[in-house]
Each structure stands twice: as C-alpha cells, then as structure tokens.
C-alpha cells in the first residue's frame, strides 16, 4: 500500500511543477533564471517518470542510464540557449 501512496505523490508533484512552470512562463519575461528553473524542473519531471512510472529505477541500468541522459541532455540545451 505504501508504494501506491508514493505514486500518488509523484503524480501530484508532476502536476504542480507543470502549473508552476506555466505560471513562470506567463507572469515573467523569459529571463535566464526562468529558463534555468524550467530546465531543471523538466529534468526532475523526466527522471521521476523514468524511475517511478516507467519503473526503470530497479530495472536494466543501461536503459535507465540512456533514458536519464536523454532527459538531462535536452533540458540542458535550454540552459545553453541562455548564453547564446
């Protein structure tokens, strides 16, 4: 039952982050800080889905590594765009 409650928490956190990011995008000019916060939260969302919904946390480590790298690489490019 504990595991069930954990999933609900992650679901709520993911929705909260989505709403928070939208609020940032709508209320503030797209500053470097906003871009960095959005990129970091997108990384967190991706890793949460990979580990807890996709259940790769205790599965094949190569697949988990590949998926995590993907969800770290592309949000990192958001941060990189701040400097160009």
């Amino acid at each position: 039952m504990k595991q069930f409650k954990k999933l609900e928490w992650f679901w709520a956190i993911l929705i909260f982050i989505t709403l928070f990011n939208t609020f940032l995008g709508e209320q503030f000019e797209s500053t470097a800080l906003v871009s960095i916060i959005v990129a970091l939260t997108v990384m967190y969302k991706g890793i949460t889905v990979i580990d807890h919904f996709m259940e790769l946390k205790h599965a094949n480590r190569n697949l988990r590594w590949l998926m995590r790298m993907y969800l770290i690489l592309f949000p990192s490019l958001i941060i990189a765009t701040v400097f160009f």
Partner: protein
Amino acid sequence: MNNEYPSKSLGIFPRSWSEESAGRIPGNIPIWVGILSELTEFAIFFVAYFIAKYHYPEVFATGPQGLSTSLGVANTIILLSSSYFMAKAMMNIRLDDRIKCERYLWLAVSCGAFYLIIKTWEFYWNNLQGLSTSTNEFYTVYYYMTFNHFLHVGWASCAILWVIFRLRAGEYSAAEHSGLEALAVYWHMIDLMWILIFPLLYVLR
C-alpha cells in the same frame, strides 16, 4: 515455423549488457528497439528546434504567445495522469487484480482520447487565428513536433485498446504480462516526449 527461442544468445554484445548483469529489461527487447528509434526521431526534432531558435530568436520569443497555453497545460496534465493510470494498471496486474487493471487501462485510454480531442481543437483554433506551418519558423517546428506526437498518442491509444482486449481474453496475469508492460513503457516514453515539448513550445519565450 519454429517458434522456439534460441537457447544461446548471439554473443555479439558485451556480457555486461546481458539481463543477468545489467538488470531486467521491462517489457521486451523489440519494444525497446522501437522506443530508442522514436527517441532518435524526436531528438532530431529537438535539435532542429534549438538550431532554428538560435537563428530566429525573435520569432521563437513571440511564437508561443500565439498558442493557447491553457490547452497545452490541459494536455500536459492529461498525459501525466495517463502515465499515472498506466503505472497503476501495472501494479494491479502484478497483484493479479485484472478488474482493477482493466479499469486503469480504460482511464489511460480515455486520457489518450481527451488529448487527441484537445489537440484537434487546438489545431482548429490555430487555423482560425490564421496560423499554419508556413506562418514562420516557430510554427513550422511546432506543427512538425506536435503533429508527430499526436500520431504517437493516436496509435498508442489503439494499442491500449488491443491490450484491454487481450487482458479480457485472459492473456495477462501476475506471472506473465510482458506484452502489457511493453505497452506501458512505450506509453511513458510518449509522455516523456511531451514533458520536453511542452516547455519548448508553450512556456519558454
């Protein structure tokens, strides 16, 4: 036709890649070949997005303002919820609770249907605003990415219906549910792609 699995691996990959040393592969290997191919396809779209944004910063700064953010947010919440329902379906099949598993699969496929309806409405709404693939570089990237994602949600929703049919036929149980698990990881991959698409097209200016 010989349907037996080969008793030995081909031996073309390092031993460290084997399930024994790297860990269990959720679903099956073919679905992961598909997933990694899809990830490559979307990676090309993301690279195209960043290259286009570098060359046309003003177009990409103003582009998201023409889109309906509320429809984008609604679809994000719907897809996150569908991933949650899919994870719950997986938990219930492991408990051998097929009734609850089916219930969560119906919820997941309903989310897929809602997503497709909202996305279709969004494309229609965009059209009313005079937006199209040729409006500017931002909208070209927007339509390529979102229509491609739309197709993925469409066929994966059909796959959920197929899995429900198989579940009802008694094909899945706590002991054997690799087909259901393969669909689940594919569905989560589609959700992951939207997690990346949403901030790029709707949030960041």
